[in-house]
């Protein structure tokens, strides 16, 4: 860069600050879901039988399939970061794209699962759910609230990863400046970790 185009002020880069900020943000995300985990544990101790039958009705196959999908996508996003650190931009782009595809596959699975429940009438104020005992109403209330909020996080994660992918393609993220890619990866891992808690709480509750 010639001296004429150099910025008059030095550019402030705070790698540690941005890392710490991301971790604090992830911490608040865990507390956000923490409210739901708190409600789940209290209601489960109040209605242990209803939570058992509620868990039996859920589609465990789709739940486990989605777990495999998310775990694999966590691997690919970690690979995208490693590839970028070693200067392999092409591999990084491939890994990021695969991660996004896995995220979309998760949402498609979720769509199939929810529409099956809705078809059966098991949705808030739905005809089938209205006949269930109170504990199961709460179980399905938490099921929709937790998987819904998690689904929104998957959507947000896909959006962030897409933006990062564009940055990588335009060369804004390089092997010496990959902070944003790393933070996006951290967010994606969080989405994965929360799902690992949701799977046993809801699908394996029986």
């Amino acid at each position, binding site marked *: 860069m010639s001296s004429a185009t150099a910025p008059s002020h030095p550019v402030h880069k705070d790698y540690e600050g941005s890392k710490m900020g991301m971790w604090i943000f992830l911490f608040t995300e865990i507390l956000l879901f923490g*409210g739901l985990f708190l409600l789940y544990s209290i209601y489960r101790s109040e209605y242990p039988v209803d939570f058992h039958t509620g868990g039996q009705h859920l589609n465990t196959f789709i739940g486990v399939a989605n777990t495999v999908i998310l775990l694999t996508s966590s691997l690919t996003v970690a690979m995208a970061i490693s590839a970028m650190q070693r200067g392999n931009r092409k591999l990084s782009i491939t890994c990021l794209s695969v991660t996004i595809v896995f995220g979309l596959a998760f949402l498609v699975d979720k769509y199939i699962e929810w529409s099956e429940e809705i078809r059966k009438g098991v949705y808030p104020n739905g005809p089938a759910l209205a006949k269930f005992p109170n504990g199961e109403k709460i179980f399905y*209330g938490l099921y929709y609230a937790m998987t819904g909020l998690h689904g929104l996080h998957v959507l947000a994660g896909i959006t962030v990863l897409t933006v990062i992918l564009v940055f990588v393609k335009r060369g804004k993220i390089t092997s010496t400046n990959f902070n944003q890619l790393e933070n996006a990866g951290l967010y994606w891992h969080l989405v994965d970790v929360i799902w690992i808690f949701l799977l046993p709480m809801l699908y394996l509750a029986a």
Partner: protein
Amino acid sequence: MPLFVWSLYATAWIQVLATPILGITLLLVIVERVFGVGIFDPAKGGDPVLYQHLFWIYSHPAVYIMIVPAMGAITEIIPTFAHRTIFGYRAIAYSSIGIAAVGSLVWGHHMFTSGMGDPADVIFSLLTFLVAVPSSIKVFNWTATLYKGSIELRPPMIFALTFIFLFCIGGLTGIIQGALNVNVHLHDTYWIVGHFHYVMFGGAGMGFFAALLYWFPKMFGKKYNEKVATIAWFPIFIGFNIFYTTMLVLGYMGMPRRYFTHLPQYHTAHVIASIGAFIMVSGLILLFGNLLVALFKGERAEQNPWGGVTLEWQIPTPPPLENFEVVPTITTGPYVFNPEVPK
């Protein structure tokens, strides 16, 4: 490190820990109302007391988010106008952290009459008494700082001292209603309204006024009329006490909160409280009118109008971009007056 920064650090912890809980609670209320998802509705097997818990897990620490920065500002103002170093630096710093920690565990004292159960009631009552300890450590340290100081009664100091006085009343009434048996009588009465205005307005509010009067010249580079600010203090202080002391008495007599009307036996006290409110508001108008005039027509303020020793007074007024050309080297503590005189 100045103690104001310590207080902001403690506040930041409360915000990070408590705000997400409010976020999820409001989200759940929205999905329950809009989509009919069963979470708290008893008709769907939910428990409204759980909503109360989640709400207060955030909303009690929220009052500490308001008061702890105000306490930090008071800790800056008192040494400057007593011309004396702060007494008990460590104790004040740790008590900020103590308030943040214990204050996050006392939310249940809003729910003594909700039927959450005796063990919970007793534990929350005990913790509520405990949270008074770090607050009173601060009050004792401020008072000890004033002892043998050369006190200058200029507007920020007047409001800082008002803070201590009103906060003490607010704190002591808080201890009274933190006791379980008394709380059954006082719950949801005007006593509670009086109490929280003493801590939130007498505390956080007066702390805000003191801080505003203290840093106004530095922030805007304009001087305000100190005489008018002092005159404004009288109606604020007198009106405040007429207004909220009457509320304490009304509540003790049995006047409930959140009613738009009242029984005839409470009428006189309501009239007295209203007169107090008007006196107080006239003072507030004078206070802020004075600052507005200063903002547009005030003289240029000098670099250090109060003789403060912390860093912000060592740079020009108003502060230049990026405050310091180079990172300043700190050789003494933040509250050293007369550094040439050996201790």
